[in-house]
């Protein structure tokens, strides 16, 4: 049992699976010799050689597109997009090919590939380093979208993603890459894709979130619970396909719902959850399902970024509002 932070858990999972499965190859910009700008692939080229771990050309469409070809021809590519904001040149390959090859060939060719991307804000970065783009993947049939929130989950979900028969977009909340450590078993274990986790059960309100927002939301819940409430927290873990059962069950119990996310509000991921709850738990609702999300603006550069991300206080205010409705 090692005590690892989130990024170390990812390195460990990659290492583990490469050791086990020769068909796993890892590449992306600066991923080889240097081990990636966040060091997620540190040491892997030295251990597994340049054929299995390499620096790609600086071209995201090539990174994704070549990965599709490799996956069809028997490999299990795990590619890195340096920041999710740089996935756009590769988006054509992701949407029109990775997501569709199985359907287009009626199961003859499949794309068991993982596309890793650090995502999200709060690290005071340059432009395009802070986007939360989960909807752009979750709206596309054929893609799975996974977001871990702890080192333990990161390993289990990444192993599940690599072994998944379909393409998985693996979004890593870089704000918490090194935020805390956790015991991560050295052994093989997976966390099923498509299953949410009830972090904490409660009876008065259901809160759903994922990624780095899990911790902020936990803190907000702690504050609000001191005021006499009992709140259920669900870490969605998989953005698509949604574990609607877990969420709907919870709302049927609590009657109240808040979703917290880092993506902009309009046409954002929270809207889908609210719609599911309307469809499945309408008669149980005692207050309007509510989203806590950034406004419809472009993630500002560092000096303005605090206006963007909801903070603990902001979340707490929203929880109270819904609880007292």
């Amino acid at each position, binding site marked *: 049992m090692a005590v690892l932070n989130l990024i170390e858990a990812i390195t460990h999972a990659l290492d583990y699976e490469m050791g086990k499965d020769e068909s796993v190859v890892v590449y992306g910009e600066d991923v080889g010799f240097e081990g990636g700008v966040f060091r997620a692939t540190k040491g892997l080229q030295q251990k597994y050689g340049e054929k299995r771990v390499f620096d790609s050309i600086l071209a995201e469409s090539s990174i994704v597109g*070549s990965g599709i*070809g490799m996956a069809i021809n028997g490999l299990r590519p795990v590619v890195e997009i340096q920041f999710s904001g740089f996935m756009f040149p590769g988006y054509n390959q992701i949407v029109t090919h990775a997501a569709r090859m199985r359907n287009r*060939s009626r199961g003859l060719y499949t794309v068991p590939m993982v596309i890793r991307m650090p995502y999200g804000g709060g690290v005071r970065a340059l432009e395009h380093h802070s986007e939360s783009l989960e909807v752009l993947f979750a709206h596309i049939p054929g893609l799975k979208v996974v977001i871990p929130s702890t080192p333990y989950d990161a390993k289990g979900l990444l192993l599940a993603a690599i072994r998944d028969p379909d393409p998985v977009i693996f979004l890593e909340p870089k704000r918490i890459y090194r935020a805390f450590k956790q015991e991560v078993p050295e052994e093989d274990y997976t966390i099923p894709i498509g299953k949410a986790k009830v972090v904490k059960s409660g009876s008065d309100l259901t809160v759903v979130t994922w990624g780095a927002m899990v911790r902020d939301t936990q803190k907000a819940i702690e504050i609000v619970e001191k005021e006499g409430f009992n709140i259920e927290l669900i870490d969605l873990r998989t953005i698509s396909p949604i574990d609607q059962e877990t969420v709907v069950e919870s709302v049927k119990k609590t009657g109240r719902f808040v979703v917290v996310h880092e993506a902009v509000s309009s046409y954002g991921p929270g809207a889908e959850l609210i719609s599911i709850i309307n469809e499945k738990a309408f008669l149980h609702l005692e207050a309007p399902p509510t989203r806590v999300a950034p406004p419809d603006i472009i993630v500002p550069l560092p000096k303005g970024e605090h206006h963007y991300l909801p903070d603990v206080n902001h979340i707490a205010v929203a929880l109270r509002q819904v609880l007292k409705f």
Partner: protein
Amino acid sequence: MFLKPYVPQSEEMVQIMDPNGNIVKPEWMPNLSNEEIIEMYETMVFSRIIDEKILQYQRQGRILTYAPNLGQEAAQVGSGFAIKQTDWVASAFRELGVWLRKKAPLYNILLYWYGNEEGMHMPEEVRILPVSVPIASQLQHATGLAYASKYRNEPDVTLGYVGDGGTSQGDFHEALNFASVNQTPNVFIVQNNQFAISTRRAVQTKVKTIAEKALAYGMPGIQVDGNDIFAMYAVTKEAVDQARNGGGPTLIEAYTYRLGAHTTADDPTVYRDQEEVEEWLKKDPIDRLKKYMLKAGIWDEEKEEALRKEKSEIVKSEFTKVENSEPVALEAVFDYIYADKTSIQKEQYYKLKALQEEVE
């Protein structure tokens, strides 16, 4: 022979057989048996007949959009004969001759254009990726396929096809660059048929030959008379052999002409004169090989008639099968999005099923 030293800027197009079926470069004539030449010819004729039949069905309203290959048969069949059955192909949508060469069942091909994805579920040994509509994107897959072959030390080569219009896309650039940097066993074939829908080749790029673009990647680039099946075969063979032996990728420009419409939704008379088409009809790749075969005494009109009759019958009977194929079931459009349907998809499926049953 062709690839070293290559001077793509020299504008010397590789031609072995002229439009009259005469061998003008005997020293380059590939070593093909009469049987092989006849097979090539038969494949080209088959392709032509399929095109003609489908166009006829289309006029009858029995099939929807279709992209004919008329005039480009040598570019496709010639290059297709240069690879093995085990080699991979990543093509766009105008490579029928390659599909035929790779033993893709005609039923599947027709079923696809009939409007049913099931057609692209080819037998595994065909090894051609499904029709790729987003222009040039398939070349990226070609590089990955080849990387995987090289990774496992397998001898397979991957051919990537693209059109002249496709050379303008960023994906063309990135794929050739990846192949060159990683020395993957790839051969890229540009079918320069002079048009991207209505847009002429000269609008796409200012270079004299598309083959020249290879210079930007440090790989051999070579322009070939795409209506000369021997030239297409010989050059592709050398490039494929080189790739198979670790020599890296090559770019081949097949200089040809799209004799028909872009697709059945297109009317080429809007943007080009019939005279231009007439000029190119004189260079027809099938006529050309036929002239050669007649002169060589390995073909006659009787055989021709028999061949055309046989192939026409095949198309007819396969198309009848397609027309009688099962309608696309509701299950079919849900079953291949993921390996397993999601919980939401299951609900959607049952809801739609109930709706549909109610109507019936």
